[in-house]
């Protein structure tokens, strides 16, 4: 019997961190990717903003599309063998909220590395409510993975059997043990930060505002000598991201206050934000990023509305 694979809820940032895959060795057995946090994914369910669609094939139909969530961007490839998804991608206006159910695909370029993408099985346009709920569900499931990961690290010899005894699914338990073998203990704080940032966007409360009134803490980052292959050290990246996220939340709040039914005028937004000690450059950057993430749009030139 072919067991139907569950559709994982994973943020783009965790998805794109993947450098490891479990290729099926036998026919009719599924392949998986394993993320650093132990998601063992064959099928995935994503909701986000369709930001662009292009045909990348000389002849015929082969579309590449991008879907963004609060943490990053998923890449989709859809062609003649996915007629339904392909025609949906051509029909849906950009930008729109879409839900995608699809299978994970990998590409290993000659110079090494691994690129992950999604081959859609089903695509539909959805509303912002569905998007918000997907963010909440995905926050929750990412948190559950972090907790399971910590449980594994507590064990003398982390193993699938004992993780399952704690009530985690077979797939997740296997995924975490595989991730530990391949990536080692992951930097959990990165994923905690991802969840926190994503939640900022769906919390419809004023409590956040008080936190934001404190001016963002700019850390002064000593430039370090970097090895060629070394990524930017995580913590500096986080500090910068934190500031960005804070400004974006602030800007979004301003728009919500101003917009009414008609939307908020660009100039009014700039004025209000400047009072909160944000530079014009920072505001522009925040607006672009918020548009990319699908939280605001421009119904008329010069007017901004939240979705």
């Amino acid at each position, binding site marked *: *019997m072919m*067991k*139907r*694979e*569950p*559709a*994982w*809820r994973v943020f783009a940032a965790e998805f794109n961190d993947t450098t490891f895959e479990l290729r099926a060795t036998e026919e009719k057995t599924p392949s998986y990717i394993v993320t650093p946090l132990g998601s063992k994914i064959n099928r995935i*369910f994503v*909701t986000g903003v369709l930001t662009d669609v292009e045909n990348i094939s000389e002849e015929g139909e082969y579309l590449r599309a991008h879907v963004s969530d609060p943490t990053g961007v998923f890449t989709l490839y859809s062609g003649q063998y996915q007629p339904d998804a392909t025609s949906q991608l051509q029909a849906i206006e950009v930008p729109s909220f879409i*839900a995608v*159910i699809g299978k994970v695909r990998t590409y290993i370029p000659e110079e090494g590395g691994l690129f992950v993408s999604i081959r859609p099985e*089903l695509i*539909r346009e*959805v509303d912002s409510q*569905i998007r*918000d*709920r*997907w963010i*909440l*569900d995905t*926050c*929750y*499931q990412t*948190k559950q993975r*972090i*907790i399971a990961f*910590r449980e594994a690290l507590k064990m003398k010899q982390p193993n699938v*059997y004992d993780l399952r005894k704690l*009530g985690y*699914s*077979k*797939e*997740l338990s296997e995924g975490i043990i595989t991730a530990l073998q391949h990536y080692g203990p992951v930097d*959990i*704080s990165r994923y*905690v930060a991802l*969840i*926190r940032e994503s*939640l900022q966007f*769906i*919390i*419809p*409360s004023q409590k956040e505002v008080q936190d934001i009134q404190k001016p963002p803490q700019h850390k002064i980052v000593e430039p370090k000598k970097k090895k060629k292959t070394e990524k930017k050290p995580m913590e500096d990246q986080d500090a910068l991201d934190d500031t960005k996220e804070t400004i974006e939340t602030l800007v979004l709040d301003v728009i919500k206050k101003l917009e009414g039914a008609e939307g908020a005028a660009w100039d009014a937004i700039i004025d209000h934000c400047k009072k909160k000690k944000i530079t014009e450059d920072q505001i522009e950057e925040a607006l672009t990023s918020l548009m990319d993430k699908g939280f605001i749009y421009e119904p008329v030139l010069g007017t901004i509305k939240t979705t």
Partner: protein
Amino acid sequence: MSDDDIQKHIDDIIDASDKEIDRDELEKEFRKFLEYGVPADQTKQTLLKKFSGSLPSSTQERTLIVDVKPNVPSVHLLCRVVSINPKEITVKGEPRKIYYGIFGDESGTIPFTAWKDFNISKGDILDITNAYTKEWQGAAKVNLGDRTRVMKTDESKIPPISFEPREYKLKDLRNGVGSVIVVARVMSLNERTVTVDGKTKIVYSGILADDTAKTQFTAWHDFKLKEGMVVRITGAYVKIWRGIPQVTFDEKASVQKLEASVIKRDDITPQRLLLHELVERNGALDVEVHGVVIEIRQGSGFIFRCPECRRTTLENKCSLHGEVQPLADLRLKLTVDDGTGTISVLVGKELTEQLLSKSFSELKKQYAADANSRFLTDIEKMLFARTVHIKGNALGDDFGITLIPEEIKLFEYDMATESEKLLEELEELV
């Protein structure tokens, strides 16, 4: 090392092996190992393995059945054959006879499969080395394969097997747990007459519940059960029916009536399960699940059924009754997924009407029955990618789990409370 010593070691190896070994050849090998300075004990181990393909049982500590874990490549058991049955299976087109049953020791019982004939029978006391274990229905199962060595031994080797029944909560019942005690409330009861070996017997069956789960039961004896009674059943067995464990007991069991307050009606609530739990258990009665509708499948919407047998018809033809006057019906076949597992949900006419808040006749008017595709598009708009809350019974088969809902509704998120709660929980993780 003296020649005498060498001969003694060689005797040991030959004694320990269950195969014929050429003594001269063994001696030649043994001396070669000694020349290379390999210690005698290690040489014995290596050569025994080489010449007979097995290790002496003394090399591996015995595992008690209660401690057996799944997916272990080699275990050593000392146990009794509680039951054994042959089974004909087909492997790669070849018919093959295997044996399955239950082993027991002083710590408990465990199901086993023997992939060849080890010539064992019920009641034998066995010393088993190099058995391997796999996971089956969420618990460990012992397998006896080509590498496994089975030796019959005598009663003195094993303390008396405890067949003391153990008390279980209904949710923990699994195949092969042996004799059990359950304390449960009789939720429903019916009787039917069956013929066994030419004798007619009355069988009592129904649903039992405790505060963890519901399960079906079958009683082969009249224990004067009544609906609403709370009972302690001692000496019942677990049988698997359609993937779901059920409780079976007969005149050998004892049934004691308890105060009805031991399990109050209000203690009995549906189990809230994640979908992976439902899939791994292969079904369960009276469950409550949440999940996202990720597909509205073929065969949803308006369908036509044969008036004789209720099978769906194609162009007014039933596969059994030929040309018929079909009856219109309404149903939804959904795929529901919560990120941990995925199930099918089969929503019948009444619940579909409730879900859409429209009666069948209104729907027929709205979508003249031939416009099924338009109807499905509208259903999709309403349900696709949304979370549903479902109560009902889940049955497992070769295609996975199908949940038959008694209740299905769109799940209302409380975004503010939920996200606040998550933020608080995150603080504990940092």
